């Protein structure tokens, strides 16, 4: 009616769902791409950089816990449908734990950590979740010997994803603002 | 047989050989040994009790050897224990403690002397029931040794359930190092190491298959003389022999007989044994005394005569 208002009057929910859809797709794409990195010997098999965490972290900081959880679950389902049930539970456990950690850290009023610290914490949580699932599935404690490797790898991965997120932040925010008009 | 087979075959064709072994085990169960599978030799003999049944030559051999062992140990190991084993059914979900009436009827049928071999036919007494479960895994090991012979394999360690085959030469050392499992510990705890050359090894212990009812533990090595799990002062017996069937049969018999009464039995078959009793004494027969070293502090080595 009024020419001044935007012509597109999509309800808030719909635009949120649409944005989540885009973010999830981006998470899936990142997850897919990182599979092409050859496994480095000396590292536990299946250790992934967790590039999808870039998207999840952004979602958590701008859209809250439930939204981030959606992205995590969708990504886990994708992993599950391409790599099997074991991979599904690994991705789910790592993702959920990581999402919880990042939301807790971001909700704290005086969050002492910058993007780098949150990334590293998330990566560690992610690997911890996977280690727990691996232990439960195999019913043994033999994967505990992986712990030091996973810890160090999480540190490196966290730094990398944190840096990438830092660089991509403006672009991601622009993407979100498109949906809030 | 439904048991775990683990193999380490030191040969470049290991994969193919392993497959052959798996096939052979299945054949053994289907054709010869299983009392569960309808057309197996043993089942047909049992179904036709009182009459002669024609069976595979290998089955005849195994029954012959089983009768021989039964004779030499005075029936403590007896191939006709089928009814007793099925009564208790230890190891399955239907395990139960039989009544004394049930036990006496079952015990009445047990007598290896009523198993007659004539040519390629076997007859068990009417109402008898053969069960070669105690030696099935040892027999499997014997067959596996044959396969390895045919393939000219240099060395292998095979375990079918608890029956072990140490074949050929150890590529990593002068001989094979066998760990004697700790009867009161976890599955990978061992109390002694035995250095052995090619041989078959079987262990009978009161920890393998146990059924608990009303606070009492019943292990699966039944004494055909009483119908109940053998009351032995032993926790476990490990028998080393040049035949899988014999090592299985002898380990069962020796567990029931106890250390003292087993010595002459083992000598008869040129077998060696390691006996662990409730006080954690480890008795070792003469032939392997220089090959054993105890690795667990609470266990005491007692050299036999």
């Amino acid at each position, binding site marked *: 009616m009024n020419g001044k208002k935007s012509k597109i009057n999509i309800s808030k929910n719909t635009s949120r769902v649409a944005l989540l859809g885009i973010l999830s797709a981006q998470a899936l794409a990142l997850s897919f791409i990182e599979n092409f990195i050859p496994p480095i010997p000396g590292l536990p098999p299946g250790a992934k950089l967790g590039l999808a965490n870039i998207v999840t972290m952004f979602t958590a900081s701008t859209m809250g816990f439930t939204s981030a959880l959606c992205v995590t679950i969708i990504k886990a389902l994708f992993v599950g449908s391409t790599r099997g049930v074991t991979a599904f539970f690994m991705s789910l456990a790592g993702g959920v734990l990581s999402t919880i950690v990042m939301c807790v850290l971001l909700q704290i009023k005086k969050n*002492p950590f*910058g993007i780098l610290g949150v990334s590293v914490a998330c990566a560690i949580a992610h690997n911890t979740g996977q280690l727990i699932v691996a232990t439960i599935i195999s019913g043994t404690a033999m994967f505990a010997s992986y712990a030091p490797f996973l810890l160090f790898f999480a540190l490196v991965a966290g730094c990398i994803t944190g840096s990438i997120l830092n660089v991509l932040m403006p672009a991601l925010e622009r993407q979100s603002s498109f949906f809030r008009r | 047989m439904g048991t775990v087979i683990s193999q380490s075959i030191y040969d470049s064709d290991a994969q193919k050989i392993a497959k052959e072994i798996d096939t052979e085990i299945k054949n053994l169960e289907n054709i010869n040994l299983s009392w569960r599978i309808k057309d197996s030799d043993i089942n047909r003999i049992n179904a036709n009790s009182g009459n002669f049944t024609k069976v595979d030559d290998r089955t005849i051999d195994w029954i012959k050897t089983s009768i021989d062992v039964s004779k030499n140990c005075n029936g403590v190991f007896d191939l006709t224990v089928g009814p007793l084993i099925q009564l208790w059914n230890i190891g399955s979900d239907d395990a139960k403690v039989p009544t004394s009436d049930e036990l006496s009827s079952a015990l009445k049928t047990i007598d290896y002397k009523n198993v007659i071999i004539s040519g390629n036919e076997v007859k068990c007494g009417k109402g008898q029931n053969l069960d070669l479960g105690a030696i099935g895994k040892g027999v499997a090991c014997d067959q596996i040794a044959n396969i390895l012979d045919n393939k000219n394999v240099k060395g292998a360690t095979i375990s079918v359930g608890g029956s072990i085959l140490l074949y050929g030469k150890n590529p*990593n050392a002068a001989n094979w190092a066998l760990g004697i499992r700790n009867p009161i510990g976890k599955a990978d705890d061992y109390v002694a190491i035995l250095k052995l050359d090619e041989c078959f090894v079987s262990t009978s212990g009161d920890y393998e298959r146990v059924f608990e009812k009303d606070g009492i533990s019943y292990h699966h090595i039944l004494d055909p003389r009483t119908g109940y799990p053998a009351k032995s002062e032993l926790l476990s017996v490990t028998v080393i022999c040049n035949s899988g069937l014999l090592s299985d049969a002898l380990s069962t018999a020796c567990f029931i007989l106890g250390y003292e009464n087993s010595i002459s039995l083992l000598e008869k078959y040129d077998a060696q044994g390691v006996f662990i009793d409730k006080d954690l004494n480890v008795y070792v027969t003469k032939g392997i005394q220089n090959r054993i070293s105890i690795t667990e502090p609470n266990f005491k080595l007692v050299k036999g005569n």
Partner: protein
Amino acid sequence: MKSNKPFLKRADIILIVIVIFICIVLFLPNFLNRNSSAVAVVYKNGKEVQRISLDSVAKSYEINLGTEPANILLVEKGRICYKSATCHDKLCVKQGWLSKSGDTAACLPSKTLVVIEGQSSTDEPDIISY
């Protein structure tokens, strides 16, 4: 929406330093054993099933772990690897050769693990009676 999220704050650096410290502590035992001869330890279902002294291997051979999905190990002088597996991901095979203490490869679906340990122990059994 926070457009000015700081990248690096003091707490971040502290966190990273602590993590590095923990890693060093956990890795220490491995580094101290680097020079001893390598022993490959094979685990099935969490239980140790075999110890192989890699240095005393004369001729290369294979080991079939008898699992489902199947795993075949290849043992050579000084090194070991998963030669083939019928699992979906084959991450175990992709790990390649294990030769230095701390090297590991595992197959999660078949619950097997191979770890290289530092000490060469001639006192471990090849197989344990049941």
